[in-house]
């Protein structure tokens, strides 16, 4: 299991995620997913999505609650696209942009976003109170008993979707 270094902002973020996981799932030894779906349908998520649409952003929802513990969205504007995951565990988000070279970049600060759309989405997500996570953070592993019998998960799996393919 990965350990976060002490005394860093990453450490604080990691701790806040662990707190949210415990609050949402109850226990990582015997997690209960019922709260996740309530949060995914909450006004916090719906208002953010509606707000992006009001700004002219086309939003495609690809969420399936069989595997997703986040609202999974594709935002499109003027030919540019951004992937957005809004966790149902707590106020954590993944904003991912695929560049012209095909590579993915995780947007953690609106002012450092690679495109205007990525900046717009990142700013809206941040203003709604979500923490924008980076790839290094979500690749950390934790102990978590899962329905398929495995006992470890990445934060990406615990926060967003049950997949080991992370963009």
């Amino acid at each position, binding site marked *: 299991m990965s350990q976060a270094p002490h005394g860093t902002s990453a450490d604080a973020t990691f701790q806040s995620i662990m707190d949210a996981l415990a609050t949402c799932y109850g226990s990582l030894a*015997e*997690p*209960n*997913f*019922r709260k996740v*779906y309530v949060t995914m349908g909450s006004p916090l998520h719906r208002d953010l999505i509606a707000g992006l649409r009001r700004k002219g952003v086309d939003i*495609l929802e*690809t969420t*399936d*609650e*069989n*595997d997703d513990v986040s609202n*999974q*969205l*594709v935002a499109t504007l003027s*030919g540019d*696209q951004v*992937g957005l995951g809004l966790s149902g565990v707590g106020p954590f988000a993944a904003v991912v942009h*695929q*560049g*012209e*070279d*095909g*590579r993915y970049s995780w947007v953690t600060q609106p002012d450092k976003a690679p495109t205007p759309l990525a900046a717009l989405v990142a700013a809206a997500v941040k203003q709604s109170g979500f923490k924008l996570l980076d790839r290094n953070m979500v690749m950390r592993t934790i102990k978590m008993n899962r*329905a*398929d*019998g*495995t006992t470890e998960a990445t934060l990406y799996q615990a926060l967003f979707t049950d*997949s*080991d*393919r992370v*963009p």
Partner: protein
Amino acid sequence: MSWEDQGRQYHMWFGHGTAADKGKQPGPGSSVVGKSTADRVLALAYGAIASLPAAQRRQAEAQYHSGTLPRLKEAMTAWLRATALDQATFASRLFGRGTDDPVVRSLHRAALGAATATSQDDLRDAAGTVAEAIQAVGINQWPRFVADAAERARDPATQAAIEKSRQPPDPALDAIRPVYPVETAIGVAAAGIAGGAAAAARAVGGAILKQVLPEKPTGTPATDRTKPSATTSSTVVEAPPISRQKQDGHVAGTAQNRNRVRQGTKTSTFDGSSAEADALTQEAWEKGSPVPGRSGIRDYDFGRRIGAAPNGKSQSIVRVHQDSAGRIHGHPSGRELP
């Protein structure tokens, strides 16, 4: 080699160069018989740029330098090796699109043209068709399209399908069903007599083009999620292995399914047994369309009930997930049927 030099070289490769030693370069009708797939792919890649309008050519050049070229070469190599696949399999495996998609049709035609090219003119024509596809996709979207195509080309199931299609035909089957229609075989023989091996090769190429690019598309497009499964692939493909634990989470009566329900995970469940769920999952992976923005996920609508949503209502779509080890699992998904 700079882009300018490369462009000049590939112009010359097509017989349109302006170098001082032009006389040594192949002319438009020069034979390219015996050129390797790698040579043909390079000619196609650079020739496509050369066929674009000047403004787009500069942008495409920049894209090549920023990583698109190696991905395009990887994807194109697969396209040229996949010309024996039927049209539906070519479209779904290499592009995640249907047979009626104009971009796929252009690229299919280009791949066939390049694979069967016998002259510089043939290769130039194929490159021009790729340029048409670039413009249809949009120059800004082209790198993403190429990145997705390269990822699909790396898919072990796609590679298996291509290799299978390239194996020599079974003589026992050929005795029953000729590879080419009889009239085409006569045409090939006649061309061989009249014009030598190159003409015969061109005739075969034309026959393949007719076989895989009929005037009207046939079968159910892979992207059409409203129609029931009707398309069958003529290529037998070894399906990816099933991720047993995850798959059983969506089969009633299994321990994994009980675990999911106990944990409160919303769980769609297949109607049938594990074996039936496996078959549906593998068929959905074979025929499904990629879910936008989601890596390694495909949806396929069977057009009939295949399982139940968490609330018990009927579902007809199977969503399939592939993990980083290539294993897949699926579950009923999507809108609930009335």
